[in-house]
């Protein structure tokens, strides 16, 4: 290809312009279907290449290509020094990663699932999260903790907890929860480049799901800023706010509700901490109704925080009805799961003309087998 370009160049600038217009050598890639797994893989590959201080460690990440194959091919490409298999001790390798970050490297620490991060949580919170503050800005900890979070298929209580609320509670951490492939790639790159400790919550069920990735997102410099939510579907009647997998469910519900004349605005949070409250507030000031959707448990959760922030801010006066939280049921996840599609479509409708309160919802809606309860507001 390069030789042909030189030929054209020899024949003058005009020829080059023709080439550019005709896009022979540099036809931009059309929007591609890329799975979340591949998007994460690309993000890590690109960052490993860009900065030699970046490295990946965790159980099974190297020779096995990753417990969920997210790091496929990376060990072959970068070798033992950059992709490191660890013994089975989350506390051990999280501590090692934190120490490496303090010493100037930029580790990506993979937990096989975030459930097992509990064995390392002292390292994440007391050592990674708090050190920059405790050292009065002298000692940054540029680390990314990543791995699958939340519910998967039939893995029961000790493999299905959502840790968004736990980690987002702590100052000193950034907490990110991507949904689609662009989110995954762009946010992981931002997380790796960020000098703060970032908890990067993936979802196992999303790994194999393909999403369209724009040309722009295929560039090696493409990043998605941490701390900014995205409106996936603009609407006027009701705002649905969600993160990770449940953004997809919200969009499905919006499609169903659209047929009934209800126009939903769906917000993909992308980042849990810092929360993009302005985005939610602007939306609520437009639609006057808000529903939060998450996989985690209701008490002290992401939805609870959103409710509090809306109540504390200017958007409160624009609410025509109390905020509704849709969450996982407040029980340890049982193994047996029904396989029912999101029951958001069972929500009662809002009558836009009358701006009345949302009609009472069916008492329980099913979201991937987890029964969801509508949380009644306190009168």
């Amino acid at each position: 290809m390069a030789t042909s370009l030189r030929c054209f160049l020899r024949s003058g600038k005009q020829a080059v312009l023709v080439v550019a217009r005709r896009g022979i050598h540099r036809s931009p890639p059309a929007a591609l279907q890329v799975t979340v797994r591949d998007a994460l893989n690309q993000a890590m590959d690109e960052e490993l290449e860009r900065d030699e201080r970046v490295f990946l460690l965790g159980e099974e990440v190297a020779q096995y290509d990753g417990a969920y194959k997210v790091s496929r091919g990376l060990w072959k490409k970068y070798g033992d020094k950059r992709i490191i298999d660890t013994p089975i001790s989350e506390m051990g390798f999280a501590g090692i990663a934190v120490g490496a970050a303090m010493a100037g490297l930029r580790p990506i620490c993979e937990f096989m699932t975030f459930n097992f991060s509990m064995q390392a949580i002292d390292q994440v919170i007391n050592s990674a999260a708090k050190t920059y503050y405790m050292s009065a800005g002298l000692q940054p900890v540029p680390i990314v903790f990543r791995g699958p979070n939340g519910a998967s298929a039939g893995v029961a209580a000790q493999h299905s907890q959502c840790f968004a609320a736990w980690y987002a509670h702590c100052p000193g951490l950034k907490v990110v929860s991507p949904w689609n492939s662009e989110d995954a790639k762009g946010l992981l790159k931002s997380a790796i480049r960020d000098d703060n400790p970032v908890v990067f919550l993936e979802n196992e069920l999303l790994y194999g799901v393909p999403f369209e990735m724009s040309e722009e997102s295929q560039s090696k410099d493409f990043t998605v800023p941490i701390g900014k939510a995205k409106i996936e579907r603009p609407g006027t009647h009701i705002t649905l706010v969600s993160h990770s997998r449940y953004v997809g469910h919200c969009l499905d519900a919006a499609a169903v509700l659209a047929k009934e004349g209800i126009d939903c605005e769906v917000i993909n949070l992308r980042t849990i901490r810092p929360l993009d409250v302005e985005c939610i507030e602007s939306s609520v000031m437009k639609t006057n109704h808000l529903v939060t959707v998450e996989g985690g448990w209701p008490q002290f959760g992401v939805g609870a925080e959103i409710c509090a922030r809306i109540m504390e801010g200017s958007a409160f006066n624009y609410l025509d009805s109390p905020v509704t939280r849709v969450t996982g049921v407040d029980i340890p996840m049982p193994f047996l799961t029904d396989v029912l599609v999101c029951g958001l479509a069972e929500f009662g409708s809002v009558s836009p003309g009358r701006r009345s309160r949302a009609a009472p919802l069916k008492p329980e809606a099913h979201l991937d087998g987890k029964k969801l309860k509508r949380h009644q507001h306190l009168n």
Partner: protein
Amino acid sequence: AMHQQQPFDSSLEKPQFPGASAEFVDHLEFIEPNVISGIAVYRVMDRQGNIINPSEDPQLSKETVLNFYQKMTLLNTMDRILYESQRQGRISFYMTNYGEEGTHIGSAAALESNDLVFGQYREAGVLMYRGFPLDLFMAQCYANADDLGKGRQMPVHYGCKERNFVTISSPLATQIPQATGAAYALKRENTNRAVICYFGEGAASEGDAHAGFNFSATLECPLIFFCRNNGYAISTPTNEQYRGDGIAARGPGYGMLSIRVDGNDVFAVYNATKEARRRAVAENQPFLIEAMTY
């Protein structure tokens, strides 16, 4: 009484540190970890199944030995069916016990039926030896209406209170300090019961394992730690898991009596577990058995 400090006499040229009891040495020499010819592997049978040393023959009745064989074969068969179920998508998850049947049956046979068992997830043979019916194994894996666990748990997370088998918990090595605590409780109950705690060589890397081993010795618990060393943790081989001489070499570091056995030799496993159990209860101290297998 044996752990009390010796009386202090400052006139003696002997180290009198509270942390250790030893002689002085005047040349610098590091203790070398012995990994080339490490702790020997105890076996009873040779590769053809003949008893090598007749004094080590446990002299079990023909019925007992046939029962061992029947249970090991049954376990293997059940594994094949359930593993294929998982590959066909009928159940979401399964862990086979292939190759480690000897470790389960040999050790289970050496225990009393009321000894408490803490497993990791590859000890179905212990439960099978204790009479857990096939129906209930199936019920647990398929999470059907007969499941004792009412469909709460993933497959292979068996539990049976009646048979003193504590329900399997997923996070690795969490059962180790729990077993220590349970053994301490049983000691206080004074009922001559022991606890056996199974885990793999990979799980022994977890911080919980260190805590469990250490406390079992300081609390003087009637406890047998049974490590199944099968050479791999998912894909991680032992040379990436540890650099010492396996798990058995760690025991003395905690003050525990330790032994390495051929895990595929059911009589060796039986003998080691039986003696360990007898002494653990009689002397209130923990034992570490590392069963080499594949």
